[in-house]
């Protein structure tokens, strides 16, 4: 029995013969229905292009004002970072770090790592850190929570709407675009293919 012909389901450990799923099909585990593999068309190129787009949107989304309010003549703008800074100044450093990581640093890191990995694969450049990067990317994926942040913005605006005048800034547009890019990035990312390509590149280099 050749191990490369089989794969094991990560959630129920069932051995499954490597699928012949083509683009557009989904391969599920026959026992627990876990989504084993979902091949994507042009996964490497699309990841490369989308992470470049994300890179351009990172700075405006983080630095431009997202929402501003006006109460009794005095107005105030809020950016992604200003919430973190205010929380830190109030002594809530635990919450500040949590927000900093999940809304700024991890999304940023995840785009940078996608760009690095897909760039190396696209230009066929072997690198001994490739598997390290992809592993890190898989682990931080769950902690980048831009879509939850957008919901937080909506709830906060609803709460404020009755007591203040709100104005939405250019940062919000950049933020929503960044969110769309990261969602498309995640759905076009074919980790099985990426691991295979990394293995191929690194063995070619050794020869």
């Amino acid at each position: 029995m050749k191990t490369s012909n089989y794969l094991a389901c990560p959630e129920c450990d069932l051995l499954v013969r490597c699928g012949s799923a083509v683009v557009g099909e989904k391969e599920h585990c026959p026992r627990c229905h876990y989504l084993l593999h979902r091949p994507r068309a042009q996964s490497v190129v699309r990841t490369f292009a989308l992470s470049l787009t994300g890179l351009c949107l990172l700075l405006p989304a983080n630095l431009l004002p997202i929402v501003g309010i006006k109460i009794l003549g005095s107005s105030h703008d809020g950016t992604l970072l200003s919430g973190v800074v205010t929380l830190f100044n109030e002594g809530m450093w635990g919450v500040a770090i949590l927000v900093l990581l999940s809304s700024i640093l991890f999304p940023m890191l995840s785009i940078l790592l996608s760009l690095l990995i897909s760039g190396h694969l696209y230009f066929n450049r072997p690198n001994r850190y490739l598997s390290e990067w992809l592993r890190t990317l898989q682990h931080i994926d769950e902690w980048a929570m831009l879509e939850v942040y957008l919901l937080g913005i909506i709830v906060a605006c609803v709460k404020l709407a009755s007591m203040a005048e709100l104005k939405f800034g250019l940062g919000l547009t950049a933020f929503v675009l960044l969110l769309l890019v990261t969602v498309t990035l995640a759905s076009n990312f074919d980790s099985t293919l990426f691991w295979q390509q990394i293995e191929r590149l690194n063995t070619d280099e050794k020869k």
Partner: protein
Amino acid sequence: MKRNSTALTQGLVRCHDCGKLDKTHVVLCTRCGNPLHARLPYSFQRTLALLLSSFALYIPANLFPIMTVTKLNVGEPHTILGGIIALIHSDMLPIAMLVLVASILVPLLKLLGLSLLLLCVHFRWQVNAKRWTQMYRVISFVGRWSMLDIFMISILVSLVNLGSVAQVIAGSAATAFGAVVVLTMFAAKSFDPRLIWDVQNE
């Protein structure tokens, strides 16, 4: 090879990170160099420890004020539940339901669900393993949405920061609630659903 044979019974190990299959005696994955384990190491103990800590922190998270809203020098502390009730009183039922689900129901169901999964593994309950694996999948998917309250506070404190006119200050429950969310996410990550399948006698 008989039907329904698992990697473990065939003497194989799946790498947690890259998914490559290797023989059980291999120590480091031959593709990505990660240490290989048949199951997540100390999965039960780690999940139990993280779960007990989050149960303990769930109490201050709900009792203490999560933020204090000051209007014209009159401060008014809000707990998580108080914030939801305030939303209902101002006729914003859909948003109130959203916050109720994200910050009360999801953490509570997550804590109970993970406890059930641990009990199932410990007492070797004979259950419909497919259903229970699906429950695990739901638990690990919904966890991140509890961060909604934390993000909302982060936006409110930076926007409503006008000195004596109006100010929102985060309360001590925010730290506890954030810790509950993070700990339950770690607990779900450290639980290995293959344990459910291992305890079933087929």
